[in-house]
């Protein structure tokens, strides 16, 4: 570990700015929401978050987000690799369109996807031949989350992949390692921190996602396709305007996401340390 006193200047200044801006824009407003959840007694809080529909929503959100983030890691790595390493017609276009899911409003994405994957839509009809129903099932949720999450992974990997020194692979090749072996043992560890960042971001985004999911999920309690954000909105928009309940569920959601991100950060730092040695 480095000594606390670094020769690089700007510690105080950047620390001050970072903490101040983080507090003003993020932490203080969030604290006011979470303040509401403490208006519930611990017993009420526990009763609320252990209701079957709430637990089910958490399971759905986390499960689907996890699956989608994994899928995104595989395809995101592939896309980033192909975009950085190979030349082929339409590459520029492909590169340019990766961010599309960010630019398309989530509601539009959700509406469009739900239509495309319903049994009346282009892709839904195709899937139906194999007896697969996409829209209004968990598969639909995963599809929507893959859509919104893919840029996170690709864009996290691309810069690192571009900066990867050639000498690494060359050395490995000279030592007689096969291409795939080189990839697995030399390149992948180098990409690991970035891949984990992408995974974490896609996962976290997926757990809280609302707009693109509600149209395609069908929100059926029976099928277990209600996501956490939907339950929160239910609490807010139902006749009773239950701020406390909404805030309590939001708090749990936040804690889970925060823990996930923290764990990923820890792994990332550990991975970074290992490769630097």
């Amino acid at each position, binding site marked *: 570990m480095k000594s*606390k006193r*670094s020769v*690089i*200047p*700007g510690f105080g*200044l*950047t620390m001050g*700015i*970072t903490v101040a*801006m*983080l507090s003003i*824009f*993020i932490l*203080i*407003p969030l604290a*006011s929401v979470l*303040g*509401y959840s403490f208006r519930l007694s611990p017993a009420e809080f526990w009763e609320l978050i252990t209701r079957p529909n709430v637990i089910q929503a958490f399971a759905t959100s986390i499960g689907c987000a996890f699956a989608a983030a994994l899928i995104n890691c595989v*395809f995101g790595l592939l896309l980033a690799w*192909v*975009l950085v390493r190979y030349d082929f017609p*339409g590459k520029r276009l492909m590169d*340019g*369109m990766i*961010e*599309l899911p*960010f*630019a*398309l*409003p989530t*509601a539009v994405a959700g*509406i*469009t*996807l739900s239509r*495309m994957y319903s049994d009346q839509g282009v892709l839904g009809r195709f899937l139906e031949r194999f007896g697969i129903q996409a829209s209004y099932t968990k598969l639909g949720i995963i599809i929507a989350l893959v*859509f919104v999450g893919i840029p996170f992974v690709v*864009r996290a990997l*691309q*810069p690192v992949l571009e*900066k990867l020194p*050639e000498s690494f*692979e*060359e050395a490995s090749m000279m030592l007689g390692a096969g291409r795939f072996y080189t990839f697995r043992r030399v390149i992948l560890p*180098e990409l690991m*921190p*970035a891949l984990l*960042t992408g995974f974490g*971001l896609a996962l*976290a985004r997926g757990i*809280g996602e*609302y*707009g693109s999911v509600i149209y395609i999920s069908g929100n059926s309690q029976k099928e277990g396709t209600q996501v956490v954000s939907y339950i*929160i909105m239910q609490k807010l928009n139902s006749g009773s305007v239950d701020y406390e309940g909404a805030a309590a569920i*939001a708090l749990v*959601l936040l804690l889970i996401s*925060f823990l996930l*991100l*923290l764990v990923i*950060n820890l792994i990332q*730092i550990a991975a970074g340390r290992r490769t630097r040695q």
Partner: protein
Amino acid sequence: MKKQKTTGREEKPWVRRLLIGISVVFFLIMLVFPLVEVLYRSLKDGLALYVEAITAKNTLSALRVTLIATVTAVAVNTFFGLCAAWLLTKFEFKGKQVLSALIDIPFSISPVIAGLAYIMTFGRMGWATPAIDWLNEVLGTDISLVFSVPGVVLATIFVTFPFVSRELIPVLQAQGSSEEEAAAMMGAKGFTIWRRVTFPHIRWALLYGIILCAARAIGEFGAVYAVSKARGKTFTLPLEIDALYMAGSADSITQAFAVSSLLVLLAVVMLILKQIVEHRGKREQ
């Protein structure tokens, strides 16, 4: 430059083709199909309706609000991102991991909660509202931080907050800080080190971050929806699209897709800009 080398960095042709093939198929299904669907539906009732939709008064007003929110959010988040990335990659300190995870919070927060957060702080029942009222009285202004354009800007900043820093951190981390340390020992001042030593390394990552941030800001729906309710005044493009879509008539649904295509166009313009800058940058090197 890499392509001419025969050092074994290249895969066998069939592997390459297979990888490209799979990516292209995934790309077509996941990204191109929805886009084609949007474009098709925006134009299927003719160009006249399309033009009418994108030149409507409400659309132009929404475009204006969207641009204001996006540029402000990008400026604020770029400044923050540079500071945070410097802090998190050049120094070791206690609580670094926690701080890093805190910065990522907006990624994981349901946009629904993001909007609510500002309302609980600055809205009618918010605890900071008396202070804002007092400030307005002293300054003789009438600024509201929710259900207004400033509210939209704040909500946009919230959801795009970590975008720039997240792009910078992996690159800076991969870079290590030995160059900066050397520069500092040679007596260079903080900003000079940043500009001369660090900046050249992070230029592209920074641009990626800015573009990501801008693209996300343009498309944000959930958080802004919570603090913007007046169509033609504080609506952004995504809200206008939603309003058109929810208007329920066949025409207005087509118009909703027309405005969506405008949004996509905005994104494409930005991405082309990025490509040009990037291309020039690579040629220089």
